């Protein structure tokens, strides 16, 4: 019998994952035999230069893109080979997303955006979930902004709404794709502190894709990708150490 992700203490994992784009003659290898696990309750950063395959890895783990070969699990559910509607429901109930460009629904106000994962499921948050959302919006400083629409908020505020939306359903894993990429350094630091607090405070598993060493220094663990392969796996590191590793990778290349 196979070892389950839960027994390994993993929120998600991939084994022998490969992915190529394009036709045979012009193919580009995005991922080349990657096997990793994202630990439950930890804040994991996936680092690498542009074109290293980190975004592709995240898309496949989140059920947004198909694996070329290899296997992918979210918790104990193998998602390789699931159909579009199963993946859709899985994303809705078990995964949270934070994007670089915030990606809030412009026609909905802050509350509408935060409760959207519930609305997509055709239900309203129950009492416990409502309490949780109130707690989230308070701690994210959005309490007095609930009736505002996205274009009335600053970038940092919009990203905090996106964080609240991602955490509202207490998903098994939150994927953050360059969450500080469109923010000034102060707002960026705020967002990272909030993500870190979510992981240390109540054990939210988070996987963050980034190429910013300062952002990665907030994580408990850092996976380095280059040319579609995992080249380093470090515990918490300082921004200087991370920059050093990145520079070393550039020089090898």
């Amino acid at each position: 019998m196979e070892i389950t992700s839960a027994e390994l203490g993993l929120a998600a994992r991939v084994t022998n994952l490969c992915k190529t784009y394009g036709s045979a003659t012009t193919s580009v290898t995005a991922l080349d035999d990657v096997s990793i696990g994202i630990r439950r309750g930890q804040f994991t950063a996936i680092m690498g230069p542009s074109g290293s395959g980190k975004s592709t890895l995240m898309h496949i783990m989140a059920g947004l893109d198909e694996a070329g070969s290899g296997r992918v699990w979210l918790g104990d559910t193998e998602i390789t080979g699931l159909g579009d509607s199963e993946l859709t429901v899985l994303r809705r109930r078990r995964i949270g997303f934070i994007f670089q460009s915030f990606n809030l629904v412009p026609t909905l106000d802050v509350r509408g955006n935060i409760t959207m994962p519930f609305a997509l499921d055709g239900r309203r948050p129950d009492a416990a979930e409502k309490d949780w959302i109130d707690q989230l919006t308070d701690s994210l400083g959005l309490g007095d902004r609930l009736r505002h629409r996205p274009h009335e908020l600053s970038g940092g505020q919009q990203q905090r709404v996106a964080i609240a939306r991602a955490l509202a359903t207490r998903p098994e894993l939150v994927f953050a794709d360059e969450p500080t990429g469109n923010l000034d350094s102060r707002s960026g630091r705020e967002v990272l502190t909030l993500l870190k607090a979510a992981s240390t405070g109540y054990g939210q598993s988070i996987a963050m894709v980034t190429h910013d060493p300062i952002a990665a220094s907030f994580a408990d663990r850092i996976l380095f990708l280059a040319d579609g392969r995992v080249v380093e796996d470090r515990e918490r590191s300082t921004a200087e150490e991370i920059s050093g590793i990145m520079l070393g990778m550039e020089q090898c290349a």
Partner: protein
Amino acid sequence: MSGSETASATGHAGRGASLLVAALASAFGVLLLETTSVLATVVSGNDVSRIAAVRAALSIVAFLFITIAVYVSAIVTTNTVATVIAGRTRTIALMRLIGSSAGDQRRAVALDGLKVGLAGAVLGAAAGILLSFAGVRLAFGAGLIPDLGYRLLEPLLALPVVIVVLSTWCAAWVGSRRVLTVSPMQAVGAAQERTLEESARRPGRNAFAIVLMATGVLFLAGGVWAGQVTEYGVLLGLAGGLLSFTGLVLGSHLIMPPMLSLVGRFLGGSAPARLAVANASQHPERSARTTIGLVIGVTLITMFAVAGSTFETMMQPLMDDPVTRAAVSETVSTSLAVISVLVGFSALIAAVGMINNLALSVLQRSREIGLLRALGFTGRQVRAMILAESVQMTVAAVTLGLVLGVAYGWAAAQSLFGSVTHAGLVAPSIPWLLVTLCVVGTAVLTVGATILPARRAVSLAPIAALAAG
């Protein structure tokens, strides 16, 4: 899909629709003139001296309907261009950023309109002429018309073509005025249609629209009142109709959103329905643009039908003889059928505009739809959302059109025939067959309009939302 790809895709879709609208209007004009020519020849036999007089009378009627069709198609084209521009904000801003003037940008859009108008009008005219030749041959073969020297190619046919080209050009120019509000800075930030819409809110236009509507309604009431005494009441009523309707078109962004949210209430509280309602009510300009053409079409059809049957009701007490009654009834219903077909063509043009606008709005929301898919919206829910938007728009437009048409038609009958029949104020008579046809047409349009946009929206990869930029 990147922003520039979306922009060029919407550009192509918009051009296709404008081409189709211009072609339809031009084909309609040519066909109508050909029909009057054939009719005049048939009526006059081969007596050439009579043809001209009959022809002139028929042409005046033909041009009335051509004007309606051109008016509707100009509104549709203006709105299509405005929608395309709204979606192309970033590209225009980028051109402004690297040194193109707003005037240059606008002239380019207008020139494009001229080309599209020219191509559409010529294509439509060619189709109209071919259809006329085929029609005459068929009618002759079936023994419906005698073998006379029909003139199917004549200089007069150039007139609708020229009118359509000029109106498409003007429509592109008017629709492109938004180009002037695009700032080069929008190429740098994340520009959304929203900023554009807010800058386009003009209190002056709103006030003007409201004044026009109020004056128009007063004139209409005056026309109905004066119509009890003199048939010249219709002139007052006509002025009232034109004023209030122009006010309505100008102020459509004030009227349509409340109508849409009213209809939206009946759609229920599911996530797709709520998003559809939010989309319509938070883009008042866009929803007004999408629906106003259809409102005009339905209003016109209903107006003629209600005016006709109300007139019939008013005449009934005056006619004791059942034979005369039947004859009048027959004449009214034949004329109504002809008029409905003629005006129905304008409604068809309006429907093309609505379908196209819905498709454009889906194209322009690729990112948003991709995001919804990433967050867990199923393909079925996306389809339901687009269907809900379509239901909301067609139901609101057709309902408003029916209500307005009944009011205008009743006012027309009262102000024109009130003094003749001395029937006093009678309730408007509503031709239920027409209402049923409208409802069925609406249902077909509602579902038909969503087929392509829904297919496109469902095929969008959720990953599109993740792509930065």
